[in-house]
């Protein structure tokens, strides 16, 4: 039977959960041998992606990306984090901030498979479509 990337990731998570570092190293070594045996090395990327998702879910963590034209102040950041906590039910939010002058103003927030596009660039594009229509 073929083992899916998700199944690999889940078993890996269950193996390493709560184990000390030296044991984890041993487990990983065995895991790689097992992957090799099953000729499943090409699934590594998918497995790591799934693993991160499972880890975040189990630990109540949420990684999000915040793109803004200028850096957010602490209060604004607090509001974003509260919003994310409320929406996703996560306990901890890992916010990755990116500055991008191209979006002109506002922000774009990406988390899970959701996107909140409040950028000035997007609004202008929407206005353009509306005027053209």
């Amino acid at each position, binding site marked *: 039977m073929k083992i899916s990337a998700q199944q690999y990731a889940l078993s890996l998570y269950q193996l390493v959960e709560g184990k000390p570092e030296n044991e984890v190293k041993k487990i990983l070594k065995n895991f790689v041998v097992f992957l090799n045996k099953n000729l499943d090395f090409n699934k590594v990327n998918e497995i790591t992606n799934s693993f991160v998702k499972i880890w975040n879910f189990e630990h109540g963590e949420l990684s999000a990306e915040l793109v803004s034209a200028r850096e957010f102040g602490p209060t604004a950041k607090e509001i974003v984090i509260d919003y994310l906590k409320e*929406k996703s039910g996560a306990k901890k939010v890992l916010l990755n901030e990116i500055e991008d002058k191209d979006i002109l103003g506002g922000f774009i927030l*990406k988390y899970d*498979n*959701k*996107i*909140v596009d*409040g950028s000035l660039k997007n609004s202008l594009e929407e206005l353009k479509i509306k*005027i053209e229509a």
Partner: protein
Amino acid sequence: MSSTKDFIIEQLKEEISGFKSEVSEKSVGRVLKVSDGIALVSGLSEAMMSEILKFKTEKGDITGVALNLEENLVGAIILGDFTAIKEGDEVQATKRILEVPVGEAVIGRVLNPLGEPLDGKGKVETNKFYPVEKIAPGVITRASVKEPVQTGIKAIDAMIPIGRGQRELIIGDRQLGKTALAIDTIINQKGQNMKCVYVAIGQKESKIANIVSKLTENGAMEYTTVVLAGASNSASLLYIAPYAGCAMAEYFLDKGEDVLIIYDDLSKHAVSYREISLLLRRPPGREAYPGDVFYLHSRLLERACKLNKEYGGGSITALPIIETQAGDLSAYIPTNVISITDGQIFLEPDLFYKGNRPAVNAGLSVSRVGSSAQIKAMKKVAGKMRLEAAQYRELAAFAQFGSDLDEDTKKKLERGKRLYEIFKQDQYMPLSVAKQVIIYYSLINGFLDDVPVEKTREFESALYKYADLNDGVLKLIEEKKELDEEIENKIKQLVNDCKATVDYLIK
């Protein structure tokens, strides 16, 4: 002058201040894989079945439709240039089911299955949209078929009558005139209070250009919409084309109007669905078609209906076309569609090459509901004529073996020959029901027995010309829709008068 300028600026300001860019959460995903018009997308956890997806590419947005909702993936068909989509491109869900523009504005247009113009006449000016997929009307809303669709084709209107709201399959090998039958039917709908939709699925675009020009020439584009998914379009467009055409027809149905829709042809539609299904890795079944290929056509053809008065009384008559391979009626798709429809018109190569065109096989063709829709006059002549045709077929096969035939048999054979002559009809020459009644009445009453077989068609056209000049009879039949003594006498008179003008009668 200045006031207009101010006015414009004022309006523009108002527009812009009134414009609220709404910031809302959107569900997004990423393209994992693209192949032959199919994309596998990760994420999109809230995607709905047949929801429109927007692929954000460097060349602008490309539309797709979600078709497979799996645990971690969404399988989508791409309704555009799939070569522009790259792995990792963002995909947005729109929370809208696939829909097409509908309304009066689509009439006279050639559109693609998304409702975009292909005829260079600009955008379709309408603000109404109908979903492409819709559940067919239920039992409560329906009425039985009782009004006729006049196809204008003698063999069909008499022997295989079609009613408004019926589904009649046109089936036969390639190049036997299946499309020609459908186009003649559209041309004959002029002044019959009927809107027409012609859906071309996987047809050559040159053929469609030809058809459109013929329809325009005959004034039929005034009530016709052509939905074209050509042979060069992707399988996804071919797949949605009949549903899109049906949605356009449903707009008129909801207004209480009658619509005729032609699907040309459903075998190519099934092939395109097979392609999509296999690419989406759905398990193949018989002839590699997926398991739900029956549902593919049944849900489409079930949308053809006759609604009762309370629901507007409109109707959709469907004429699906199926192309068989070497006359094989028992292949998968032909048997499916035969069982879904209310009858079929079977075109036969032997008849076609003998010169009997349209090559309708009267024995294998049936219409299960249409006879109740015939006008009384036609019913009266057609019943007898069908018997005449059946007897001729039987006797003709029998008479091949012997030459000694009694007088009665000879007579029947002679009349049958004339009947088959009358069934012959040129393309783009549909005939009004009144004229059909006259010619059939003349035949079954033996008025044509003294016209030589090879001159039958000549006499027939002379008779029509004569009837046109004395339009009293034609009008009477069309108004009364019945054959009373007065009309019968007038027809007799007409035939006798016409006979007096020709010199080739058998003495």
